[in-house]
């Protein structure tokens, strides 16, 4: 019978915590930057300029139909061949941002398309200023409509970020690899690391749900 050896793993727990901090930084950074890209690209995809719509379409489809692993290989190993090189952690941030930006673009676009033009006309008729219309009539309801999709995409981003360990970034999964190679307690190490991811993702989704309850409390009219 196999006896589990968790002691050496917990002896290195501070290193796993350091890794978790990097994972959080990478995910949160990519979340914010990715959201900015999503909003820009979503407006590009709904614009009147055909070339712009096409370019954003190519970006979204290429990223959504290739594995993140291959994307990060291409960015970290492929791009230096054409003179663009990054250190592991910045490369990880760039890859995660580009990845989540593509998914976010589709989600934000769906949100904008869910706003009926009649709402905007009603806003104009009520004498709202342009900024007010943009904020209360377009952005807030659009964000509300896509909030669940957007936040589950962010949780998925957190989980995907574990893949950056393959380019020797210093995230939680990489810290797990280091601890594993020193303690030889493979199964125990990855059980602990997996549990840490579960805790982070659970806290994050609870946080997102709390924000949803606070920000979008007004009733939905029909």
């Amino acid at each position: 019978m196999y006896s589990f050896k968790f002691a050496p793993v917990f002896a290195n727990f501070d290193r796993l915590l350091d890794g978790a901090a990097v994972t959080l930084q990478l995910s949160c950074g990519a979340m914010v930057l990715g959201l900015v890209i999503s909003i820009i690209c979503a407006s590009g995809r709904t614009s009147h300029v055909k070339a712009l719509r096409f370019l954003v379409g190519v970006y979204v489809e290429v990223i959504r139909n290739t594995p993140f692993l291959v994307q990060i290989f291409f960015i970290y190993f492929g791009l230096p061949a054409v003179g663009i090189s990054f250190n592991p952690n910045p490369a990880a941030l760039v890859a995660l941002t580009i990845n989540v930006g593509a998914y976010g673009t589709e989600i934000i676009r769906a949100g904008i398309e869910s706003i009926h033009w009649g709402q905007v006309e009603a806003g104009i008729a009520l004498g709202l200023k342009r900024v007010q219309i943009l904020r209360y009539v377009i952005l807030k309801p659009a964000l509300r409509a896509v909030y669940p999709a957007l936040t589950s995409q962010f949780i998925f981003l957190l989980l995907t970020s574990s893949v950056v360990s393959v380019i020797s970034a210093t995230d939680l999964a990489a810290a797990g690899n280091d601890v594993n190679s020193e303690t030889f307690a493979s199964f125990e190490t990855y059980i602990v690391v997996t549990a840490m991811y579960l805790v982070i993702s659970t806290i994050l989704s609870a946080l997102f749900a709390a924000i949803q309850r606070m920000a979008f409390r007004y009733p939905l009219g029909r």
Partner: protein
Amino acid sequence: MRQFGWNEFQLLVFAARWTIILAIIAFVGGGIGGLIVALLRTADNRVARGAMIVFIRVFQGTPLLMQLFLAYFGMAIFGFTVNPLIAAMIALTAHASGYLGEIWRGCIEAVPRGQTEASIALGLHYFARMRYVVLPQAARVAVPPTVGFLVQLLKETSLTSIIGFVELAREGQIITSVTFRPFLVYGLVAAIYFAMCWPLSLVAGRMERGLARATKR
């Protein structure tokens, strides 16, 4: 150092068959597992429902990479010879069961409650009720998101390269290490994945729009 030529290109294309095989295995295994998860998740039994909530939470709340590592190193602990293919099959199947279970739960719940009540009133038992009334109606809604998930699964099989299984992504790494042409090779690998995923994505999108039109008031 080797030149990148026709042979290398062929190696890549042939490696893609393992990607497809893995995706099919995971999809079939996950389809069976997912159906069980979805049925238990919507069952009357509280314990079954609670257990499935935990199952889905765990598999949707942890990285697939960690699930692969646990399957890989777990095999050794339970006394099996470590085999990347078997480990990949186990992890991908469990992973897909969690995701498909959650997708299909939503589809089962989308069937109006009155349908279940009517079939109970007609004296149908659980099996007949599900087989002839609920599941056929749920299936109609389920097809587009299921095809969408198949795309995700196909891409995620690339992670099995990290536990040493030689499929498309791993073959790309191997060829890169002998030809030193990462830009070209990873670009091609990405293109091959794209060629497999994009048609599926288009089909999923078209079906989704068709369904949205059909169910609009």
